[in-house]
């Protein structure tokens, strides 16, 4: 589970527009097979999985693994050869396909925005199909544009007048229009430059924290899968499900060689993308001010019990980090103004991967962890990160004689 960031300044929780608010749906695929006539191999071969309501399922795999086919069978853009697809326990074949699709959000890579309709008209597509009254459509459109971070001024523009990132946001807003219990997203950020993609991913996760839809998300990018997914279904060519697991499980224990290869040799590092600084135990640090007596600083370093960061940290009056001091800086009577080396500063909510990268980029391999106000609350060390990556609980005393499994009991 990705944890939604607590962001009081972020998008305001969408005020439930009366009857629009609907609970997310559970999705179940039961032994779904798709075989095209004349094809030697099935495109989807007996796919079964359950996506709990409100979670993001990522279908990931190399090209030709059937991930898009699997997604398109949910809203019957492709009809399965056999098997059942249940939405909240209800087969998706129990009503006309067009009716079903109006209940399922649909986002595709090329956005598929209607070039001949304005942004507002695009967003209003499904509400109009469902015959919502004009006033309700207008209110919902404005609400949605704000929700996906678009200036309502853009409502009257045409898609060609927007940037790629803006168009993709409109695509998401359009898919969310009737608050569908289920959403399908086919490589929604695939055609976007890396910087914008990263931002859209983050925004989307934050949005998902607010709207909590059940989402089927297709990508070929394992990093995106790990970032976006509550659960990941790794597909193998031939339409087989290679592994269905949470991102952490997938990285920690790939089911077989295929998954291991697909996940990549750097899977230990990838796990860093799943954790945040606050998930690790922070280390205590000796805080000093410029002008403190050097003798007192040395005393503090020795006096603290337990492991402590070997460098004193200079802070300002508000507790904000200024510099690390080393032996060379602790000369003379008092700590001289402006001495010391640069401090890497990370926040509690930072993704561990980014924080670790920051630590590695500095001479002192410790980062000051600060709270919202910028005051130091502890220190993140590269050792702590390494411990986080090692599988299983770390042995307390690595050099102890091995104890038999029953010895402790």
């Amino acid at each position, binding site marked *: 589970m990705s944890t939604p960031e607590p962001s009081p300044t972020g998008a305001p929780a969408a005020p439930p527009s009366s009857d629009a608010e609907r609970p997310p749906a559970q999705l179940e695929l039961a032994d779904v097979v798709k075989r095209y006539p004349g094809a030697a191999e099935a495109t989807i071969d007996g796919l079964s999985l359950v996506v709990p309501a409100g979670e993001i399922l990522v279908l990931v795999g190399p090209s030709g693994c059937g991930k898009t086919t699997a997604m398109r069978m949910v809203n019957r853009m492709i009809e399965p050869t056999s098997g059942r697809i249940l939405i909240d326990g209800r087969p998706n074949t129990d009503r006309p396909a067009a009716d079903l699709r109006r*209940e399922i959000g649909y986002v595709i890579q*090329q956005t598929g925005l209607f070039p*001949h309709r304005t942004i507002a008209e695009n967003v209003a597509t499904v509400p109009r199909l469902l015959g919502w009254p004009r006033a309700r459509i207008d209110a919902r459109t404005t609400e949605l544009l704000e929700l996906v971070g678009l200036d309502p001024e853009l409502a009257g*523009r045409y898609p*060609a007048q927007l940037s790629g990132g803006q168009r993709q946001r409109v695509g998401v807003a359009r*898919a969310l229009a009737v608050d569908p219990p289920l959403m399908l997203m086919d490589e929604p950020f695939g055609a976007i430059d890396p910087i914008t993609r990263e931002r859209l991913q983050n925004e989307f996760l934050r949005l998902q924290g607010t709207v909590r839809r059940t989402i089927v998300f297709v990508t070929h990018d394992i990093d995106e899968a790990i970032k976006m997914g509550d659960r990941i279904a790794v597909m193998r060519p031939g339409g087989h499900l290679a592994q269905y697991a949470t991102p952490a499980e997938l990285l920690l224990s790939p089911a077989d060689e295929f998954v291991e290869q697909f996940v990549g040799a750097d899977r230990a590092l990838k796990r860093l993308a799943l954790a945040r600084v606050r998930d690790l135990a922070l280390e205590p640090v000796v805080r000093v001010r410029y002008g403190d007596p050097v003798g007192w600083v040395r005393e503090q370093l020795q006096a603290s019990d337990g492991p402590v960061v070997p460098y004193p940290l200079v802070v300002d009056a508000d507790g904000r980090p200024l510099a690390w001091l080393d032996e060379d800086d602790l000369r003379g009577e008092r700590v001289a103004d402006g001495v010391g080396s640069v401090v890497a500063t990370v926040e509690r909510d930072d993704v561990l991967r980014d924080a670790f990268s920051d630590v590695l980029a500095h001479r002192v391999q410790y980062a000051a962890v600060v709270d919202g106000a910028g005051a130091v609350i502890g220190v993140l060390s590269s050792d702590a990160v390494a411990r986080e990556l090692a599988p299983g609980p770390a042995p307390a005393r690595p050099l102890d004689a091995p104890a038999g499994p029953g010895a402790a009991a």
Partner: protein
Amino acid sequence: MSGPLPPLAQAGEGFVRDRDAGSGASCVADDGVCPGWIVDHLDRYADPLARHVLLTVVAIAIGFAISFSLGLLAHRRRWLVAPIVQVTGILYTIPSLALFFLLLPITGRGFLTAEIALVSYTLLIIFRNVVTGLDGVPPDVVDAARGMGLDERQVLWQVQIPLALPEIAAGLRIAATTTVGLASLAFFAGAGGLGDPIYADPNFKSNVLVAGGLCVLLAIVLDLAILGAQRLLTPWTRRAVAG
């Protein structure tokens, strides 16, 4: 039809051939371009012009109705495209005069004969543009439309046809211009039009200039009218594209 064929064209029927030279008689006698005469006799061309407009507009309207229907049909059933292009291509190739002759025993002289020929010439142009236009609709847009729950009729009328409009309008413009030109031959089928005055006195430069000029003017006006209608119907094609 029995009996001898009526003559194909009776030159200048219904058109006042009398040059009625008042002022500038020498210019008129020399078959020259005589501004005075032109100004005095412009009203003579009103009826042929109205007739020419009618011939053209009716041909375009009927041609569009047929081609558009065929285009929609062929868009669904792709195998129809080749035979339709072949048949309309053959119609397009028959010289219009020959077609008038061929039709005379069946439909006789008059408006109907002219229209059949004129409509035949529009079919290939409009049909091909309708099909090209529908084919040119981006597949992701159609996919998204279906995926959001538009049924096939809604996809066609709300997405595919609007997006094919610029291409369809381009076909209509070519067809309109071509038809204005061909309609000046309609007089051979006894259907009137601006061909009437031209053939009534083909040596008189003033006459040919006015009648021919009106043809050109009509072609331009129709072209601009269709272009204007297209611009009105497809506002999204006019907006500047943002970076």
